[in-house]
């Protein structure tokens, strides 16, 4: 069908009015249908994707370009290439999984699923937008649905967590807005908001003609402004403090979406906009970025080790895993970047599983304290098995996808930053430590008699986790099936960044 990409982006939004046509209790079926239909509509994107086209500076696929505000030079310009295809796939999968995870929502269902579907459209839009203003609009649109989703349906400290998330992310975003306006105004050649065009001009030797701002060169200031905006999303230490609160207080499905997709938007921003537009500043910044990545990995893992709340531990493990993505991007070698994008996809699926599984026990016990459980393996064997698979995937056990991506990143980074890579290895060891220790305390050991009647996983819960397990194993054994999609684009991006 024509305009397939626009359909993929907007089908969830189109589903929103239908939520009011059915009784409130049936709203979840509409949302589930919208996400499943969206996934099926998007299948031709993957089957007809040309894996040999480089993308990044030209040759975007499934392009749609319409004039929007001609006087400003803003266009409705969307398209995909290797960098975005994996993220689209991830968002679609997480959309279905999160819709299933929202099955238990019992308050204001229509409002919940309206915000959820709007969020889904916004996330898909961010990954396909190729015009800076369109990108920014989609980026910002997902802020207020997240505020409501956390603030209304979340946990006990949800109001604090929601406004913290909102303000923190908005602060980064306005810096991004000023940077985008500056990029447009001082662009090499004719002024445009077209991302791909700008990256191509920079690659061909163009440069920004901006003045010195507050005593610093133009490119450095704009790079840092963009960097901070994206860094808050990733999240990079020290801008990570919103994440534990938001993840813990959000309802299960929203934690899944937050950790699964939203965090990737930050690193996607690095790969699509920030680093290709300023390759020389990237050179200057690389060492610092690697240092931040290592801090993320090790500090995030140490914080996870110290947690007593299961969900908060997984939230910090997210910080740690995203540090690996940064390590791969900072190294900018072909293995590094390919590993980073693969890690983005894998982390999305694995962390989604982890949050879903924490949600299972929270629904039943109404708390997530690791010390409050014990010996659950004897009461809920299916749950214990599934959780063991998920935890092993998070540790990066060979045979599962996490191993491939972490291995690629470490290989790619070792070429350029040996010390940093060795220190990051610590992160893997700590990862195993906190995961295994938490598992042992929750599932093994003497049974906590309070929970001897705990019900095992229900069909809906299994239905949301099993597809993710299948993907994790599939990519652990045949990772090239996914890497093939983005290899050519990312190799080309790596050559742009390292040159």
């Amino acid at each position, binding site marked *: 069908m024509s305009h397939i990409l626009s359909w993929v982006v907007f089908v969830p939004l189109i589903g929103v009015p239908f939520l009011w046509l059915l009784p409130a209790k049936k709203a979840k079926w509409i949302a589930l249908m919208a996400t499943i239909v969206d996934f099926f509509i998007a299948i031709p994107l993957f089957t007809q994707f040309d894996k040999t086209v480089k993308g990044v500076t030209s040759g975007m696929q499934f392009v749609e370009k319409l004039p929007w*505000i001609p006087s400003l030079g803003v266009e409705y310009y969307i398209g995909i290439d290797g960098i975005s295809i994996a993220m689209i796939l991830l968002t679609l999968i997480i959309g279905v999984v999160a819709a299933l995870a929202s099955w238990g929502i019992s308050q204001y269902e229509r409002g919940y699923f309206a915000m959820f579907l709007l969020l889904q459209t916004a996330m898909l839009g961010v990954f396909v937008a190729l015009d800076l203003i369109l990108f*920014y609009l989609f980026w*910002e649109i997902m802020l207020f649905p997240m505020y409501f989703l956390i*603030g209304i349906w979340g946990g006990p400290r949800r109001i604090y967590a929601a406004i913290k998330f909102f303000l923190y992310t*908005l*602060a980064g975003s306005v810096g991004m*807005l000023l940077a985008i306006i*500056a990029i447009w105004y001082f662009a090499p050649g004719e002024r445009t908001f077209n991302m791909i065009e700008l990256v191509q001009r920079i690659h061909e030797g163009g440069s920004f003609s901006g003045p010195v701002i507050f005593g610093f060169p133009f490119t450095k200031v704009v790079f840092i402004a963009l960097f901070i905006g994206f860094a808050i999303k990733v999240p990079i230490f020290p801008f990570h403090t919103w994440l534990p609160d938001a993840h813990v207080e959000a309802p299960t499905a929203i934690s899944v979406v937050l950790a699964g997709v939203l965090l990737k938007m930050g690193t996607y921003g690095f790969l699509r906009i920030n680093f290709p537009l300023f390759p020389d500043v990237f050179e200057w910044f690389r060492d610092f970025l690697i240092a931040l990545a290592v801090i993320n990995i090790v500090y995030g893992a140490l914080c996870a080790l110290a947690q007593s709340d299961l969900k908060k531990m997984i939230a910090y493990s997210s910080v740690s895993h995203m540090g690996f993505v940064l390590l791969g991007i900072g190294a900018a070698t072909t293995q590094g970047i390919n590993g980073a994008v693969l890690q983005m996809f894998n982390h999305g699926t694995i962390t989604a599983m982890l949050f879903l599984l924490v949600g299972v026990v929270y629904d039943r016990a109404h708390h997530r304290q690791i010390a409050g459980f014990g010996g659950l393996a004897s009461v809920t064997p299916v749950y214990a098995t599934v959780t063991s698979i998920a935890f092993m995937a998070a540790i990066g056990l060979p045979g599962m996808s996490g191993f491939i991506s972490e291995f690629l990143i470490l290989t790619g980074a070792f070429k350029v930053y040996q010390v940093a890579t060795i220190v990051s290895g610590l992160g893997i060891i700590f990862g195993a430590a906190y995961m295994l220790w938490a598992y042992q305390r929750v599932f093994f050991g003497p049974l906590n008699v309070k929970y001897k009647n705990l019900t095992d996983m229900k069909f809906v819960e299994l239905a949301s986790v099993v597809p993710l397990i299948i993907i994790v194993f599939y990519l652990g054994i045949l990772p090239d099936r996914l890497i093939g999609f983005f290899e050519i684009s990312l190799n080309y991006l790596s050559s742009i960044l390292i040159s």
Partner: protein
Amino acid sequence: MVNTLPYLSFIPAHVLMGFAIIFFFLAKAVPFLKRLPASAVFFLVMVVCFWLESSGSGSKSLFFDMIQVDSYSRLYNQIFFIVIAVTILMMANNNELNKENNWEVFGLLATVCLGMMLMSSASNLLITAVAIELVSIPSYVLVALNRKLPASKEASLKYVLFGSFAAGIMLYGMSLIFGLTGTLKFSGIWKGLADYSASGAAIYFLAILMTISGMIFKISAVPFHFWCPDAYQAAPTPITAFLSTAPKVAGLALLMRFFSYHISLQKSDLTLILSILAMITMTVGNLAALKQTDIKRLLAYSSISHAGFLLMGITVLNAAGRQAVFFYIPIYLLMNLGAFMAVIYLSQGNRFDIASYAGMIKKKPWLVVGFTVCLFSLAGLPPFAGFIGKFYLFKVVIEEGLYLLAVVAAVNSVISLFYYVGVIKVMIIDTEERPIKEIQAGRFPVTFVIACSFPIVFFGVYWIPLLNWAEKVKLLF
């Protein structure tokens, strides 16, 4: 007197407004006229004035170059008529004002309207002073009309004292300018001040700053903003809605016209002064709003900070800046009037504290959704039109290279989100405390707020119609 009569055909709306003033003040004495529906008559007057202004064309300087009638003044006048029409609708749905006083209130509003129309066309300092006073003095009375509230008289007195103070400073500044340049015409002032500005004499800055103090007072920018929260809180809500929009727009129009005659060597100094003013206004307005518990005070401080944002557009002192301001104004009207209409509905029973709005989403879901859209738009959040307005203001500021101003404005946008979301949180997330029967049925406010939120969302995504309207506002140089 003889020479002015042919000119009256160029200013038909002004003439009509003059007759309206007389009509509304005297009608109560005539038994036949007293029985007419005052609101309907005034609404009709607004519609006719709007039509008269939209069918005008060309530009002309009238009354010995006192006023300049052109497309700029016509478009701003149309905005005033729209705001007053909405105010009339608000007054009909609100019981804070004694309906028996409607004739006098409309007479006062007509006087304010005439003053605003003169402000938008003023090209001479003398008519500026007259126009500003013509807007201020009836406003003092309008604020005091909330007879049930004792604070209303106190607020009105504060407003009077402050306004007189600002007007006095303004007149002193104008006399300084006359002394320095020998003329009161906008076109002559800046040329006359060229030598003083070139030498950077203190008297030049003093004269300019003092002269604009009256205009600063009207747009409630720092340091003449102190009257704003008290007056807004104590005035009847329709009057607050009116004051927060129309006189502010008139003040901005006057400021822009006043500064547009500057010569290029004065630009950097003026930009510096205006950007400092803008930065301080935004910051003070936002920081003070953070602690507010009364919705009208919160909206008052929010309008102060919006005055700061709009001053950004004036700071750049070029046509792009003026267009950005004019682009923002209809959006600002939609957001602000929508918010105040929601306040009129939700605050029935004179409960204006924000905490009393708790849980309103359950009782009036669509009104709360519309109000939320207006509040998010005021915060400048995509995909709402308020973001697009702020985007153009940021754009003109960055084009001019005023990076500190851009950063301060960006930080203030984020700060402002906190207090807007505070209201939204109370309405949507908090559980209700107020008994249900206090909210009376009334379809108009709900419809109006929802009707405001549709264009806010539409223009947030496709804003070309507004751009086309803003294109028409061009001063002749």
